[in-house]
């Protein structure tokens, strides 16, 4: 049985992570609400809406795309050489956790494994 607790759906308070960007959940960036006051009305989303419908849906979509184009994905097996901003620092704990489970050096994973690993894909054009 799934349980829906209304109290769990209140998103955490946003914290600034870059110029004009805030973050409530790890890896989920939002435009600073101060920039959305005049021409766009910002909605308050329940936590489920963000973490499940939007984020999990996006990950499913990217996995689906991978699966359409090849049987497996070859990765270089290397971490980013660039991420140093506040946002990246905030995620450092999670990254360290991920690193412990990854194999170094060129590795090949199936699209199913990639889904389990999680992949980051852009939203901008």
């Amino acid at each position, binding site marked *: 049985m799934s349980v829906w607790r209304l109290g769990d759906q209140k998103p955490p308070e946003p914290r600034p992570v870059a110029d004009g960007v805030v973050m409530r959940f790890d890896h989920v960036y939002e435009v600073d609400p101060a920039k959305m006051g*005049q021409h766009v009305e910002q909605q308050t989303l329940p936590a489920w809406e963000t973490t499940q419908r939007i984020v999990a849906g996006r990950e499913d979509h990217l996995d689906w795309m991978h699966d359409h184009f090849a049987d497996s994905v*070859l990765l270089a097996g290397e971490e*980013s050489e*660039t991420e140093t*901003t506040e946002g990246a620092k905030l995620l450092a704990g999670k990254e360290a956790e991920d690193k412990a489970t990854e194999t170094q050096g060129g590795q090949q994973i199936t699209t199913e494994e990639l889904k389990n690993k999680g*992949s980051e*894909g852009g939203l*901008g054009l």
Partner: protein
Amino acid sequence: MSVAMKSAVDGGVIDELRAIIGDDTQVLPNLTSRVNRTRVPAPFPVHRWADHMPDVAVLPTAAEQVSEVVKLANRLKIPVVTRAGGTGLADGAVPLRGGILVDVKLMNKIKEIDLTDRAVTVGPGINMLKLNEELKRHGVFYPDDPASYPCSLVGGRIGASGFSLLSARYGHTRDLVMSMQVVLPTGEIVEVGEGGGRKLRKSSTGFHLKQLFMGHQGTLGITTEATLELVPRPEVEFAAFFAFDDYMKAYQTVGRLTKSGLSTIAGVVLFDEWKLAYLRRDDEAYIPQPPWVKAVVAVAMYGSRTELEAASRRVMELGRSEGGKYLGDEISAGDWASRHDRYATPLHGRLRDGQVVPMSWHCEDAALNYSVLPKVREEWHAIVDRYIDEYGIFDDWGMFAYTSSAYKPWGDYLVEIDVGIWEQMFNEENWRAWVNLKREIAEVSLKYGGSITSCHGATREGDAGLVPREMGSAWEVVKRIKRALDPNNVMNPGKQSLDEAYASTNGKQP
């Protein structure tokens, strides 16, 4: 140029269309059906919506029905506009003079899969994603890969002669279509291919008519069937993204990658400084990047495991050869996957003061050689910047350059500048400003020896007027072909300056 014809769709025409189609639910004169088939994702004159509505939409299921519809249109001199997915980034599927809109979405069947001679025959209404879902079980793949992969249709790809992200490995739509069945503007049904073969890749018999019916934007006929190339389903995909502190270092890296001789390279993409600035404010993959990241190079390869394991190591060396920093596995794999579907993006832009506004997406494209990319980039951005200052409804979303040669990564590039437009603010003055912005960008492409479009088609106000200049001495031939095949100017009239073919009648029917 004056209006070529005034639409003459009345109750009698609707009755004739119903008799041809044989199912009243597939003849749609109601307002909702027409409104839904009026515009495409590209910026649209919302203040003049009714100017572009068709008078009736029909959804045929067979070439014979299309043929009869076109014959009716010819008899009564009614415009015919074809629409597939309606995902075009120019106005190919947007009616300029009302008329009958032929929506091919119900012609979406797979008619034959030939695994021996490696060909699949389909109707024009099938989508590449759906086609590949079926092909996957056979171990083959149709590798036409636009940024609208999940939503564009084969017929539209043919009509626009679309660009494929994987062209360096597999070619573009024009290279992947072996033959077609086409309903001509006078209603005859013809087969065009390499010579007389339906599944041949090369012939020296007669004229090469197939390419004539590629990218005509619905002005020369309606494709009702196509036989397409099948390639082995790739065993492995590899993508790597590299960050640079300077655009020219990224540009040089693109040159190294494309001349590397690695035959599994499917595409290389160059993101410029404006693109990084745009992505850093709104894209979760780039927001965390530090300020020194000014440009990005992405490379993707497809092939067997044996090929790609070796080639990927070379790509990692070349990507770093001018100081590039690897962006990591997550962004490389994830961002590349998202490149197949750029239509799922929430579109908003910023005003100069940083305020968010809803914006639609204008993607102005061009075909340009490698040597001119840096200079064109500067001039395009300067144009957009000027219009942002003057009108306050535009936003510069940066530029991409994609490798665009077929079966090789060097030489040509599809170059795009993405411009956000606050469409709700369109009035006639702002609309004219956008048309002029577009024309200025296209003129830069011509100045540097390029083509004003590599992907979307020159069918919009602004660049459509430049088609005769680009075609040069061949323009007279183009007009003769148009007039010979479409004597009554019924096929998508008003597009690509082709009304000039009827200049002696002032654009009207002879």
